[in-house]
C-alpha cells in the first residue's frame, strides 16, 4: 500500500553494543580458546558483515566443559534453593538492565527485527529467569515428592531462531533445580550466549555452573553423546532430534526434545476476521516464520475464504521488510544462506507441484539473506508445502467445509506442536481444541508465550515440556 505517509528510517543505535573481534569458549568461568584452535565466523544475515570470530568447540573442549560442570555440580546442587534462586534473580535483573544492548546484539546476529527482540525475545528472557528463580526453593511443593534431586550435568543444544530465549528456556529451569549446564548455541547465532556468559560473571555465578560451547552440529553431537552428561535437552529440527534420541538410547540420560511443527491455523466462518488476519500474520511472519510453532498452514472455511484472503493480502502489503535494526521493520532477514536456500527450494517445489504463489510487491535488499512474505493458495494436503516444515515466511492456504474436516486436516501430519482456532463460538473452541493433537492451542490468538505456560509437542514435534511447573520435570530425577 504505497502511501504519502512514508516512514523515515528509524534505526536503533548500534552503538549500545560492543562486539569484540573474537570470542572464546566459556568453560569453568573463563573464556578460552578451543583445544585445536579452530574458529568460525558469525555474520549479520542482514548484511553478510562479519560480526566476530568465535572459537569452535571440539570433543576435547566438550570433555573439559563437562568436567567443569561436573565439578561445579556438587556445590551448586548442595546450595540451599533460596541461594540458587538469588543467583537467578540477579541474572533476570541484569538481563533487564542490559536488554536494549542484548536486543540489538540479537538482531545483528540473528537478523530478526529489533521490534521483536526488544518487545518479545528480551522481555521473555528476563521473565523466564524470574519465573524459575522463584521455583528454586519451592521444589518440595512442585508435585514431584519431597526433596526432588537434580540430574547432574545437562547438555543443552539450542537453535538459532530465538537464540537467547532458547538459552533462557534451557538454563533457567536447569539451574533452578540444581543442575549445571553445558550449552551449545547455534553456529549462526553464538553471540548472545557469549554475552550471557558475561552476565553470569556479573551475577557472580560460581565457575562451571554454566559453560557455553559455540560450535556446529558435531559439537552438539559430542555433547549429547558424552558419557558424563546426565540430561540432554535439544530444540531444533525433527531430523536431528531423532538422531539424538538414537544416541542416548540405552543410556540413563533423561531426554527432552522440542522439534519441528506444521501448525494449522483454523479459521471458521464466524471468526473475528480482522483479529484472525492479525493472528495469521503473526502466526507465520513473526520471526520470518522461522518458528517451530508457526501457523504455517492456514485452514480456512470455504464460505469465508475469499473475504479472508482479500483481507490477508491487503494486510501483507503493509508489512515492512528491511533493515532489522529499523524500529519499523516487520520482516527481517532470513538467518542464514543455508536456510534461505531451503526456503527457496521448498517454495519452488510448491510452485512446480501446482500451488499458486503470491507475494506483495516487496523490494529485497541487495546484500544479506531475504525472502518476501509468501502465500500459497490452491494447496492440498498432498502438496509438499502443506506437509514439510519450511521454517520461513511462507503460508500454505487450505480450505475445509466442516469442523470435522478441519480437525482431520489439522491432525493429518506427523507433527503436533501448535494449532490455532478462530471462532466466536465458545463450544466450538473447546471441542476443536480438545480434538487437536498439538501441545499448544491458541484460540483467537496466536504465538503467545509465557514462562508459566508449558510448551512442547505431540508426536514428532518432540516430548517433554518447557515452561511452568511442568518444565521442572525435565531437570529432576523423577
Amino acid at each position: 500500500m504505497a502511501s504519502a505517509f512514508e516512514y523515515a528510517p528509524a534505526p536503533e543505535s548500534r552503538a549500545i553494543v560492543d562486539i569484540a573481534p573474537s570470542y572464546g569458549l566459556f568453560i569453568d568461568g573463563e573464556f578460552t580458546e578451543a583445544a585445536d584452535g579452530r574458529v568460525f565466523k558469525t555474520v549479520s544475515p542482514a548484511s553478510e558483515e562479519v560480526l566476530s570470530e568465535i572459537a569452535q568447540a571440539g570433543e576435547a573442549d566438550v570433555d573439559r566443559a563437562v568436567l567443569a560442570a561436573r565439578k561445579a555440580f556438587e556445590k551448586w546442587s548442595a546450595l540451599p534453593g533460596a541461594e540458587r534462586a538469588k543467583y537467578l534473580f540477579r541474572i533476570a535483573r541484569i538481563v533487564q538492565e542490559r536488554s536494549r544492548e542484548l536486543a540489538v546484539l540479537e538482531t545483528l546476529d540473528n537478523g530478526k527485527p529489533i521490534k521483536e527482540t526488544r518487545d518479545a525475545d528480551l522481555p521473555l528472557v528476563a521473565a523466564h529467569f524470574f519465573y524459575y528463580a522463584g521455583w528454586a526453593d519451592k521444589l518440595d511443593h512442585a508435585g514431584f515428592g519431597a526433596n526432588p534431586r537434580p540430574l547432574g550435568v545437562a547438555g543443552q543444544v539450542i537453535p538459532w531462531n530465538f537464540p537467547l530465549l532458547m538459552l533462557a528456556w534451557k538454563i533457567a529451569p536447569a539451574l533452578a533445580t540444581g543442575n549445571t549446564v553445558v550449552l551449545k548455541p547455534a553456529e549462526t547465532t553464538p553471540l548472545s550466549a557469549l554475552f550471557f556468559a558475561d552476565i553470569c560473571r556479573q551475577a557472580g555465578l560460581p565457575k562451571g555452573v554454566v559453560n557455553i560451547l559455540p560450535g556446529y552440529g558435531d559439537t552438539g553431537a559430542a555433547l549429547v553423546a558424552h558419557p558424563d552428561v546426565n540430561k540432554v535437552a535439544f530444540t531444533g529440527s525433527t531430523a536431528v532430534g531423532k538422531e539424538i534420541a538414537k544416541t542416548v538410547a540405552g543410556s540413563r540420560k533423561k531426554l527432552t526434545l522440542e522439534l519441528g511443527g506444521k501448525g494449522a491455523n483454523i479459521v471458521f466462518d464466524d471468526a473475528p476476521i480482522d483479529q484472525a488476519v492479525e493472528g495469521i500474520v503473526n502466526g507465520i511472519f513473526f520471526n520470518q516464520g522461522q518458528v517451530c510453532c508457526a501457523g504455517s498452514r492456514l485452514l480456512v472455511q470455504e464460505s469465508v475464504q475469499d473475504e479472508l484472503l482479500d483481507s490477508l493480502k491487503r494486510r501483507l502489503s503493509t508489512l515492512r521488510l528491511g533493515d532489522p535494526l529499523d524500529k519499523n521493520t516487520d520482516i527481517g532477514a532470513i538467518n542464514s544462506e543455508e536456510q534461505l536456500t531451503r526456503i527457496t527450494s521448498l517454495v519452488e517445489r510448491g510452485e512446480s507441484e501446482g500451488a499458486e504463489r503470491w507475494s506483495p510487491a516487496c523490494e529485497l535488499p541487495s546484500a544479506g539473506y531475504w525472502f518476501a512474505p509468501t502465500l500459497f493458495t490452491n494447496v492440498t494436503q498432498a502438496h509438499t508445502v502443506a506437509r514439510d516444515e519450511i521454517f520461513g515466511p511462507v503460508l500454505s492456504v487450505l480450505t475445509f467445509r466442516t469442523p470435522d474436516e478441519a480437525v482431520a486436516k489439522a491432525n493429518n501430519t506427523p507433527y503436533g506442536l501448535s494449532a490455532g482456532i478462530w471462532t466466536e463460538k465458545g463450544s466450538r473452541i473447546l471441542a476443536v481444541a480438545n480434538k487437536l493433537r498439538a501441545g499448544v492451542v491458541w484460540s483467537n490468538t496466536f504465538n503467545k508465550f509465557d514462562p508459566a505456560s508449558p510448551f512442547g509437542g505431540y508426536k514428532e514435534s518432540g516430548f517433554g515440556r518447557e515452561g511452568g511447573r511442568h518444565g521442572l520435570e525435565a531437570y529432576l530425577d523423577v
Partner: protein
Amino acid sequence: MSDKSEQQRLSVFKTYKLYVGGKFPRSESGRVYEVTTRTSAAGAAGKDKWLANAPLSSRKDARDAVVAARKAFGGWSGATAYNRGQILYRVAEMLEGRKSQFVHEVADAEGLSKSKAAAQVEATIDRWVWYAGWTDKIAQVVGGPNPVAGPYFNISSPEPTGVVAVLAPQESSFLGLVSVLAPVIATGNTAVVIASERSPLPALSLGEVLATSDVPGGVVNVLSGRTAEIAAPLAAHQDVNAIDLAGADDVLAKELEIAAADNLKRVLRPQPVDDWSAMPGTDRMTAFLETKTVWHPTGSLGASGSSY
C-alpha cells in the same frame, strides 16, 4: 463301579488365545509355544511341567493389535474419566470373582505357593482399584490454569499419548503386568501388551476378564510369544506413540529405543523393580500423558470503557 469312581476325572484343557480387538484369535502364524511351570527345583531338574501351548505371535499379530488399539483410541480417550474409572473398577470386580483361577495360574506361572500367589492376585485386584480411582483425578493433579502475564486464560491439561506398546515384566506375570498396563489405559491410552514370555498364561486369561468388564474391544490387546520378536515391529511401528520397555533386558531395550526414535515414541526405559506390590506413584501415568496448553483472550472487564 468303585473302580470307576476312583479313576480321576480327565480335566478339560484350556486353549489359550490372544486377545486382540475384543476377540480371541489364534496367532495368524498358526504357531504356538510350550508354556511350563516355573519352579526353581523343577527347572534345575529339567522337569518343568507342561501347562499349555500359548500362541507364538508374529509381527502380523503385532500389526493387527496396533490397528485394533488405534481404532479403539478415539472412543476410549473420548470417554469420560468417570466412565473409565467405573470400567477399571469393574475389572477389579470381575477379577475378584475369578480369583481362584488366577491364584492357580500365578502359582503355576511363577512357581509360588498358593498363599504367595493369592497375595499377588489380591495386590493385582487392588491395583485396578487404585487406578480406577485415578482416572478422574490425574488431570487436576498434573494440569490446571497457568497464571500468564497477559489478558489470556491459559490452561494445561493432560491427554493420553495414544497407542502404547507395553512389554510386560518377565518375572511378575500378573501383578507386574497389571502394574504397567493399568496406568496406561487409566489415562485413556490404548495398549498392545506383550505378556511375560515365559509366563504368559495369566496375561492371556486377563483378556477374558477384560472382555467381560465393559472394557471396549481394542483398548487392551494381549500378545504372547517371544518378546524380542514382537517388540521389534512395535518399536518401529509408525502408528505406535509410546513404548514401555519394562519387560526388556538392557540389550533389547537399547535396540528398541533406537527403533522407537524413528517416529519419536515416548520411551519408558526399564527400571529395576524389587517389589511390584509397593505403592505406585503417578510416574507410570504421566509417562504416557501429553500436556496440552490452550490459550484464549479474556479481555479485561470494565477497563478502558470498551474491552470485551
